[in-house]
């Protein structure tokens, strides 16, 4: 019997891979030369770093001490957390984004085969992301003297399989506990929080402060040196597996593959039932929107603002992404308040700059949503409403959440360092407004679902937002550092860039017509 018998796992896997690559090729075709150049430069930088690292580590062996095993465990836990964030989101989306699921489930192929292949695709996707970043960094070291370190990729594969099993089980557990309607929302928010947990863990040194984090590391090192840090044998497996020891590597791989097979095969039927239940579930379970019987908003501006804010607040996927960006502010906010309390000028200036930069970025993303990802552009086009009123309302809707996001950090900062708070507030407001305007001038119609990776946005607008936000961040940084006159230089350049980017209503309309 042929291995590629129609309906079998390998046959279906080849079909999935074909679709995946065609989809990827389609996306890349639309990204243009800029993205390719950027990607190539990043790869080159990573490769240079990897070769340097490889040369340094050529004759260095990893010490088999408890501290190394503990660090490896921590790295594995962090990687697993990040992977889980992706697999949970992917597993819940697989339930709702029907695609060809109806076709596959209506065919004689067993549901468990369908799920097995889908889950394998999720694991491979997660693994690929890590491979892209790790291979140029670790590959040279493996080639230049440590072939056994290939075991790292085995551990990575095991972690990807384990994370897929966990993501799948978690999504199905959520489905059973809270039903189809809420699962999607909760899974998206949970995935964002898990991803943010990864980021916050990586910033532990910033959050705890240099002395606290160093003392934590020093305590661990001292405990290890004095023989008090003891790990059970299983705690050594990841390190041993990464260093290519066959038995631990096999054990780690078996653990990942076993968990994956168990969840994928045992959840197959339930997954099929759950996927079927999602169809129409939102209608069946949709509860009336709460709130008192209030009056209608009057006029184009008020009605559009109300509509945009409702759409933003009711989009769990969007909110979780914004939440992620807000969480990225946490370490910066901690630096800012700590330095404001202790008068640390340099770090304070840097922190203020980061807040300004992030305000611009979040505003830009939301402005793209409200301006370019309009779900019913024809409705607005057939109305007599002035396009300027509509744009103003959409821009206001994009800026409102940014103001809300910055309110608490700015309030704390005002208490500790009022002048810094003033500069930060002015800079953040300017950056948010400027990034919003860039999105008005360079609209590129897209779908809200594309927000996650800003796939729908114009790369030119994205680049311009980054540039203007960075310039304004620099201006604020200099002002906070006590050099407000020096800050005029980046501020002026930002103004010139904005003037160059400015487009008339006729130009915007022409671009939109061409895009349609």
């Amino acid at each position, binding site marked *: 019997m042929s291995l590629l018998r129609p309906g079998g796992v390998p046959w279906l896997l080849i079909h999935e891979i074909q679709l995946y690559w065609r989809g990827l090729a389609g996306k890349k075709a639309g990204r243009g030369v800029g993205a390719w150049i950027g990607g190539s430069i990043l790869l080159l930088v990573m490769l240079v770093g990897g070769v340097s690292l490889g040369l340094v580590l050529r004759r260095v062996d990893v010490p088999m001490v408890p501290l190394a095993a503990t660090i490896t465990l921590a790295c594995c836990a962090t990687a697993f957390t990040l992977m889980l964030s992706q697999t949970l989101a992917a597993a819940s989306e697989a339930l709702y984004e029907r695609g060809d699921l109806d076709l596959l489930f209506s065919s004689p192929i067993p549901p468990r085969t369908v799920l097995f292949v889908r889950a394998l695709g999720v694991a491979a996707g997660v693994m690929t992301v890590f491979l892209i970043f790790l291979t140029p960094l670790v590959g040279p070291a493996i080639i230049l003297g440590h072939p056994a370190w290939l075991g790292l990729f085995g551990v990575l594969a095991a972690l990807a399989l384990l994370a897929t099993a966990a993501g799948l089980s978690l999504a199905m557990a959520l489905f059973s506990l809270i039903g189809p309607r809420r699962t999607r929302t909760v899974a998206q928010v949970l995935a964002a929080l898990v991803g943010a947990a990864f980021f916050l863990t990586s910033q532990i040194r910033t959050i705890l402060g240099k002395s606290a984090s160093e003392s934590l590391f020093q305590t661990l090192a001292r405990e290890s040196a004095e023989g008090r840090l003891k790990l059970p044998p299983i705690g050594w497996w990841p390190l041993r597996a990464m260093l290519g020891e066959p038995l631990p590597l096999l054990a780690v791989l078996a653990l990942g593959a076993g968990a994956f097979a168990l969840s994928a095969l045992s959840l197959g039927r339930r997954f099929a039932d759950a996927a079927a239940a999602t169809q*129409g579930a939102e209608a069946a379970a*949709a509860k009336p*929107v709460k709130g008192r019987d209030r009056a*209608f908003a009057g006029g*184009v501006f008020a009605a559009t603002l*109300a*509509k945009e804010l409702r759409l933003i607040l009711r989009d769990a996927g969007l909110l979780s992404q914004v939440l992620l960006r807000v969480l990225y502010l946490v370490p910066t906010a901690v630096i800012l308040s700590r330095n404001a309390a202790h008068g640390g000028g340099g770090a304070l200036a840097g922190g203020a700059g980061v807040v300004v930069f992030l305000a611009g970025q979040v505003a830009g993303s939301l402005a793209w949503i409200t301006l370019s990802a309009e*779900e019913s552009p024809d409705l607005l086009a*057939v109305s007599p*409403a002035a396009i300027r009123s509509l744009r103003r309302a959409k821009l206001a809707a994009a800026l409102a959440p940014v103001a809300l996001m910055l309110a608490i950090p700015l309030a704390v900062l005002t208490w500790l360092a009022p002048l810094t708070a003033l500069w930060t507030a002015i800079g953040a407001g300017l950056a948010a407004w400027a990034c919003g305007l860039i999105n008005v001038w360079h609209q590129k119609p897209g779908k809200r679902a594309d927000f996650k990776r800003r796939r729908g946005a114009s790369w030119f607008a994205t680049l311009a937002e980054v540039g203007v936000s960075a310039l304004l961040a620099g201006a604020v940084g200099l002002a906070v550092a006590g050099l407000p006159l020096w800050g005029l230089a980046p501020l002026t350049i930002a103004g010139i860039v904005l003037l160059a980017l400015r487009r008339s209503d006729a130009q915007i309309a022409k671009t939109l017509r061409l895009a349609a």
Partner: protein
Amino acid sequence: MTEALIVRGLDKTFSKPAVRDLDLTVHPGELYALLGPNGAGKTTTLRMVAGLTKPDKGAISIFGIDALADPAAAKAITAWAPDEAMIYDRLTPLEYLEFVAGLWSIEPKLAKARAVELLDTLGLAGEARRRCEGFSRGMKQKVALAGALIHDPKLLILDEPLTGLDAAAARLVKDMLQARVDAGGTVILTTHILEVAERMADRIGIIAGGRLLAEGSLDVLRGQAGKDGGTLEDVFLQLTADGAAA
């Protein structure tokens, strides 16, 4: 008398000509059905009238207003309801109507009363506070129709308004349109259901290849097609076949 709609010499070419030198007149208070095979140019014509597509050439006048020179004034008295409902899944029907009323700058108190009345008439009162995301196609079409009617337009343009509606909903919509015409409103619609046009339309326009082949009441069209006593289907097939042959 000011005509509800006058279209003269309308031209639109995309990759190939979609509408060619089209003339059309719709009288106030009539229901006009624009019929034609797929790709005939019906939707493109109506999109140009609604202000969604810019014509390459020609003139459009809505109740005496030059729609190309003063689009906002023309849009203020017009409504457009395409076959794909222009609604927001995450808004409730009431919130959607609030937004649409805002776009047409309707006084909020009046808009709310009208929204409640429309949703009630369309059998959506029970769903007024539920988000549209789980609605059936027919329910979404009804919400969109309520949106089209909230500002009480003088000219209502509908592209395939009965697509996706069940028998009861289709009857409801037909009755609403008829009541609107009886009250003096003007309605232009496209449909593939010829029986609907035969039964409801005061006048019918048949378009193919971007050109208007024939226009008039069913009797006039029968005469043009040489099909005395024939159904609209017979007339339509005859005229479009003649048009293709020419």
